[in-house]
């Protein structure tokens, strides 16, 4: 099977049953993407496919050939951090760090969704020209990413510092 991961073309033999998550972790050595449930309930496995966030554990790898897959390892080059990654460190948006790659990829996908004005369940005005980038919108949209360490305040602070319209 052929994949494009973090801008690189890779070719790998894989079982058709293999999830995108296991392909990344077990076969490609990209263990930055995490497994917390393997059933779509925790968001630790979030990666970006053509810029949209998905749960890699619920995706069969075979279906994602030819799509642009971005993992936590591909957000910045070897030596630097993506601004959101740096903001997570600054705002202590994690403790154990296990949910963190998923939170970060998810937040990047979420910011795009807000940019595109995709509403959420807490969006009060569905006709608004621009959906507010506020505390409830961010928390609702990030609620698929569990953090058992409870670093939620720091995560939201890091997201606001990076993508909040005031800072943009």
């Amino acid at each position: 099977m052929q994949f494009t991961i973090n801008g690189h073309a890779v070719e790998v033999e894989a079982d058709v049953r293999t999830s995108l998550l296991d392909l990344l972790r077990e076969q490609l050595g990209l263990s930055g993407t995490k497994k917390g449930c393997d059933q779509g309930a925790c968001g630790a496995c979030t990666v970006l496919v053509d810029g949209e966030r998905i749960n890699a554990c619920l995706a069969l790898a075979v279906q994602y050939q030819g799509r642009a897959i971005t993992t936590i390892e591909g957000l910045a080059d070897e030596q630097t951090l993506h601004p959101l990654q740096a903001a997570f460190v600054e705002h202590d948006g994690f403790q154990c760090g296990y949910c963190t790659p998923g939170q970060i990829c998810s937040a990047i996908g979420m910011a795009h969704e807000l940019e595109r004005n995709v509403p959420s369940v807490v969006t009060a005005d569905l006709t608004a020209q621009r959906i507010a980038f506020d505390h409830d919108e961010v928390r609702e949209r990030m609620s698929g990413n569990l953090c058992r360490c409870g670093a939620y305040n720091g995560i939201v602070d890091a997201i606001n510092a990076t993508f909040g319209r005031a800072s943009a």
Partner: protein
Amino acid sequence: MNAEQKPAPSQWQPGVTPDEVMHRHGMIGKPVSRLDGPLKVAGKARFAAEVPYEHLAHAALVHSSIARGRISELKTEAARAAPGVILVLTYQNMPRLQNPPLFGSAPKAVGASTLPVMQNEHITWNGQPVALVLAETHEQAEYAASLIEVRYDVLPAKTDFDAAKRQARAPDTILGEPPAIEIGDAEANLQAAAFKVDATYRTPRYNHNAIELHAATVAWQGDELTVHDATQMLNGTAWTIAQLFGIDEKNVRVLSPYVGGGFGGKALWDHQILAIAAARLAQRPVRIVLSRASVFRIVGGRTTTEQRVALGATQDGQLTALIHTGVAAMTPYNACPEQFSFPARHLYATQALKVAQQVADMDMMVNTFMRAPGESIGTFALESAIDELAGQMQLCPIELRRRIEPSKDPVSGLPFSSRHLLEAYQRGAERFGWDQRNPVPRSRRDGEWLIGMGVATATYPYYRMPGAAARIKLTNDGHLTVSIAAHEMGMGTATAQSQHVAERFGLPLEQVTFELGDTTLAAGSLAGGSSQTASIAAAVIAAGEQLIDQLLMLATGDSPLAGFKRDQVEAINGGLAVRGDTTRAETYAAILQRAGRTALQCEAPAPEPAELQHYSMHSFGAQFCEVKVSAITGEVRVTRFLGSFDTGRILNPKTAASQFRGGIVMGIGLALTEATEFDPRSGRIMNPSLAEYHVPVHLDVPEIDVMWTDIADPHSPIGARGIGEIGITGVGAAIANAVYNATGKRIRDLPITLDKLL
């Protein structure tokens, strides 16, 4: 021996001399960002399931579907013939192992139970592993495991807590404390009291549910075993595995540099033991990653309890009776009685006290320690009852607590090492705006939402675990490395300890390295009981004294330090200086270079925790909460939260704030959404997934304010008492009390789900 030849007194003697470093304000107290943060956010921190090996084989488990009985038939042929299968392990071909030495039965014993691990056909809980399949890939192992057929002879099982509690028994001890204490006649005082509360509180089973699944990557090389584990008990795991497999402890190396959340759950369970056995039989390195359902089935959680709290008070709010009794579900094979009566032993002044804990034996997965075992749910009951009493007396619940503040430990009579609970209440009340609370329930409303405020005491003991040592290496460029088999599950261990070490040895942070997570380092004690900071600090103090003695032995001749003894010098500016005369100083680099040494190394164990014999040592806090409850649906939302703590010195306010908040968030789950549901007929866990076991998510968590007194405890090393667990204590009661204030409904049965409010 004359006076001159005696070793210099220790800078910190447990229970006697305070550690002077606790009052320094250089690196200690700075909000340093996590040193391992860049690795974690880049996905480069390697966890147990992520260690690469050539020819790695993958394991999958099959679990029993009955609670008690024996396996009558095992059909494994189809699994064995399935593609990629290397080995099917059952009790029939499992290597013979010793039974696990039970946690606490020996200094390094960490067995979760005394039950043999897949040694025979007997089943003792629903979910017990009955087979392990090893295959070339994860997918092949999972598929082959699904082909295994097991039949059972079923025996009657105790799977109903209400039935089991009728045969409850008193355990021998509750973690070394007596299971029951009576001072005066509490029952008689209760009967005679002007005000009284007497209520029963229930709490369910909970699971830690760290987001990292339990996993291990294990490999044998001859007789030497390497275990890449996710554990909060490195040395205990190595020793216990050695006993099980009958090998030398020195031949077992356990590594665990990063743990994806622990909370008490990252311990030695069957999966590591089975993977090690499989690796030995197959002669292949093995990786085992539990599914989330398997985590529920073979990793114990916090146990079910039923607690009675009864309080009697005089007209002016003095307690005449404090009764806290109850039953916790347990098994005959483990020793985790969930010490819910501990807070009542130390919190309040009372004329008469009665505490008594029993356990009800059940046929279930053994329960274990989970974040503030006992104190988290014990404070739910006790602090709900205090609120009920205050309500009855029409007294502010903070004022009631002021009136029952004890001057010494109510049970031992020892002085408190440092107790500033009332200050935490006062400062918290001001910041939270407690004076805005209307004491009349159901008196604030905003549309469909009923709004209420609640408060509760948080408390957790100070522990310092024996067994820790520290190794220090100082090189002639002035760099100092401390190595301990310590644990990082998100507490920021390396960061806070680097700050501590930098402060203690007068070095900038860049000149300090703190190594952890590997049993080849100096022995660490387990990361539990919020004890790690103090345990490490005591070991570093002990090793540091040796280091300074060695340095002074080298500082001879024309060294400005020549002839001085340890208690005459201090560590400052990258070296040692004569106390009171910093011009007589020499850097570490200069001392080593003059002596022609490239490095100095020393290792020393921490002294026994004698401070606990002199003082009653506990942390405290006041948890403030505002909730809104829908009058239509009964839905509860936590809208504001403030934790005001008194936990000794805070080493790093940034990581400490996260730890306090994390405890509070877990407390929100404990109060409102979490419960592991058992089918009482079969003992089967019915909700073994994160979709059906509801941990708090982003939208459930408001901005949580935290503050602390930062008053150093003069009797703990660096003045710190540990902060990992206190955050969850008191939260359940603060929320229940706020729900009562909002709705007038007193919920004594966790979690407070909407059905209970309609």
